[in-house]
C-alpha cells in the first residue's frame, strides 16, 4: 500500500490529511459547545476595559504575564482562586500566556490599586526593587483607541450574542448590566465617564488634564482593564 501511495501523490496527500486531521476532529471539536458558557458573576468587558485590553495586547503584556491560575496550593496562595473555564467566556482572544517572567495577573484587580499601577507602569523597579520589567511611560501620552473597542463590542454582540445592555446574573443574586453605546459618540461618552473615575485616583497631572479635556490616555484604559481582572 505504501509503495502504491508513493507513486500516487494525490492519494498520498489525502492520506496524510486524513491522518493529521483525525486528532483535531476527536480532540478539538467536541469541547466547543461546552466550554464557552460563562460562570455566574462573569460580565462582558465595558468599552474602556476593552480598550485597555487592546493596550495590554498591543504591548504584548501576555509575553511575560500569565492569566491562568493552576489548582495548586502555592498558586492559590499567591494569586487567589484557581481559574474556571467559564470565567474566560468573553475573552477573545484568551490571554493565558505561556511564560511567567512576571507574576500572574488573572485576579490582579483584587490586590493592586489604580495608584499602584500608575507608579509601577512609570517605573517598575521604583515600586518593586529588583524588578526587570521595563517602564511604559508612553502609555501616559498615547491615546486609547475607544472606537476600535466599540467596534469589537458591536461585533461580539452581533456574532456571538455577548450580553451587552442585558442583565447578567451576579454571585449575590443581583444582576448587572454592562452598557454599550448606540453610536460612536455615545460609546466615547461612556468610556470617558469610566475614565474619569480612574483618573480621579491618579496623580499624574497631564493624565488628569487630558481626561478633563475629554481624551483618554492608554494608561487609564489599561488600569480600567487591570482593575476588572478579579
Amino acid at each position: 500500500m505504501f509503495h502504491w501511495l508513493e507513486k500516487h501523490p494525490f492519494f498520498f496527500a489525502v492520506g496524510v490529511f486524513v491522518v493529521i486531521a483525525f486528532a483535531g476532529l476527536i480532540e478539538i471539536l467536541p469541547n466547543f459547545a461546552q466550554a464557552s458558557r460563562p460562570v455566574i458573576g462573569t460580565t462582558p468587558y465595558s468599552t474602556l476595559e476593552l480598550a485597555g485590553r487592546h493596550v495590554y495586547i498591543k504591548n504584548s503584556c501576555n509575553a511575560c504575564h500569565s492569566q491562568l491560575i493552576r489548582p495548586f496550593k502555592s498558586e492559590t496562595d499567591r494569586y487567589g482562586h484557581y481559574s474556571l473555564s467559564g470565567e474566560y467566556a468573553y475573552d477573545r482572544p484568551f490571554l493565558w500566556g505561556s511564560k511567567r517572567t512576571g507574576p500572574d495577573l488573572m485576579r490582579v484587580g483584587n490586590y493592586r490599586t489604580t495608584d499602584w499601577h500608575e507608579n509601577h507602569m512609570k517605573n517598575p523597579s521604583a515600586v518593586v526593587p529588583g524588578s526587570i520589567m521595563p517602564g511604559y511611560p508612553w502609555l501616559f501620552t498615547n491615546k486609547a483607541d475607544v472606537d476600535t473597542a466599540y467596534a469589537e463590542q458591536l461585533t461580539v454582540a452581533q456574532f456571538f450574542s455577548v450580553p451587552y445592555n442585558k442583565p447578567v446574573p451576579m454571585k449575590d443574586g443581583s444582576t448587572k448590566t454592562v452598557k454599550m453605546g448606540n453610536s460612536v459618540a455615545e460609546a466615547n461618552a461612556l468610556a470617558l465617564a469610566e475614565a474619569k473615575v480612574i483618573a480621579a485616583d491618579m496623580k499624574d497631572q497631564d493624565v488628569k488634564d487630558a481626561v478633563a479635556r475629554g481624551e483618554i490616555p492608554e494608561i487609564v484604559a489599561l488600569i480600567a482593564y487591570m482593575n476588572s481582572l478579579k
Partner: protein
Amino acid sequence: MENRPLEYDYTVAKMFMFTTIVLGIVGMLVGVILAFQLAFPSVNTFLGSGLAEFTNFSRLRPLHTDAVIFGFTLSGIFATWYYVGQRVLKVSMAESGFLMFIGKLHFVLYVIGVAAVVVSLLAGVTTSKEYAEFEWPIDIAIVIVWVLFGMSIFGLIGIRREKALYISVWYYIATFLGVAMLYLFNNMEIPTMLAASPAGESGIGAWYHSVSMYAGTNDALVQWWYGHNAVAFGFTVPIVAMIYYFLPKESGQAIYSYKLSLLSFWGLMFVYLWAGGHHLLFSTVPDWMQTMGSIFSVVLILPSWGSAINMLLTMKGEWQQVAASPLIKFMVLGSTFYMFSTLEGPIQAIKSVNAIAHFTDWIVGHVHDGVLGWVGFMIMAALYHMAPRVFKREIYSKSLMATQFWIQTLGVVLYFTSMWIAGITQGMMWRAHDEFGNLAYSFIDTVTVLHPYYTIRGIGGLLYLIGFLMFAYNIYKTMTAGRKVEESELQNASPMGA
C-alpha cells in the same frame, strides 16, 4: 538531447537562500537583544528612551519568534524545496515557464509579507496569539503565499520524471498540508470594521482589527493545537525532509532503513497532532484532553527517534566522515539534538514535571535546544551543501566552518544548561512553603535569583549569533571568491577550501 544531463534551475532557490541568511541574522540579533534585556533591563532603552516603545522587551519578543520561524526557518524550507524538489523528481524548473513564474511570485509576495509583518509587530498590531500574531490582512497574504508554495510542490510533482516520491517529498507535502490546516483554523477571526452600530455607523475604528471566532478555553485549545503543531510542521517535518536528502547526499551513504522511515513518517503524522494538549496541563481544558496530550507526547518519542536513529545509522561504518567534515558534523549533531529535544519535550509533558516546568525558562531552554541545535544546524548544513552546486564554486573555508561549528555548539550548550537551572530553580521557588505553610518566597525573589543564568544565556545566544555571522560570511565568500568547480567534483562530499 536524450543524453544531456538535466540542468537544474536554482533561480528561486538562490532567492530564498538570501532571505534565509538575512532574516536569520535579524531574528537572532533580536533574540540576543531580548536575552540581554532580561539580564540587564537598561537594554530596553538601547536606542534611547524616545524609541523605548519600539525597543522594549514586550514589543520585540513577537518579532524575534516570528522572524526566526516565518523568516529564517520558512525561507530555509522554501530554499531547500526549490533545490531538493527538482533533483528528487528529476525535473528542472526551467522546463516550465509557469512554475518558474509561480516560484518567483512566491518569493516576491513572501518578501512583501515579511515587510508587512515587521512593520505591524513594531507598531504593536498583533492578535496576541503566539506565532499567529498577524491581523487578518496579513493572514490573507500568508494564505496566498502558502497556496503558491503548494502550487510549486504539486506543479513540480505533476511534471516529474521519477514516478516514486522520495521520502523528502513526503515530508514537504505534509508540511504544506499541516500548516495550511492549522493556520486556517487558528486564525478564524472577524474583522471588526464589518460591524454596524445601532445608529447606522459602520467601518468603525481600526480597519485591520479583528476578533477571534473562539473564546477563552476554546481559543486556548485551538491556539495550542496550532502552536504545538506549528512546531511539528515548521520545525520538525520539513527539517526531517532536509536531512533525509542532504545527509545521504553529502555522506554518499544510503538511508539505513526504508521501513523505519515509513514507520517514522506515518507515526509522526498521526501522533504529533494529539500532543498539543501538553501546553494546557492544569488549565481549564477538560482533563481527558490534558491526559491525552501527556500520553501522546510520550508516544511521540517513537517516531521522532525513529527518524533520528535512521539518520545516525545511515552513517554506520562511515563515522570517520564526522571527524573529517564539519558539514557532516552539523547534520550528525543536529540529529543528536533532535533526539535530545524530543526526549526532553515528553519529559516536560508528564503532568508532575510540567507542574514545575510550565511558565518557566526551562520551556524556553527546551525550545532553543531544538531550534538552535536541530533546526538551525540543519538549515545551515543544507545551505552549505547547496552553495557549491548552486554557485558552481567550492565552499570558501572549511576551517571557518569548523570554528563556527564549535562556537555555536558551545553557545547552544550554554543556552540550554542555564535555562534548565533557571527554570527548575524558579519552578521550585514558586511552590516552596515555609514551616508554617506560608509561601517561602515573594515573586520578585524568584526573578532576581535568575540574573546569572539570564546573563549566561545571553552569552550563549551571542555565541550562536557570531557563528551565524561566520556562516553568512562563508557563504558570501563562496559566492564571490570560492574556487570554480566542475560538475564531477559535486557528486557527494562538498568541495571545501582550506
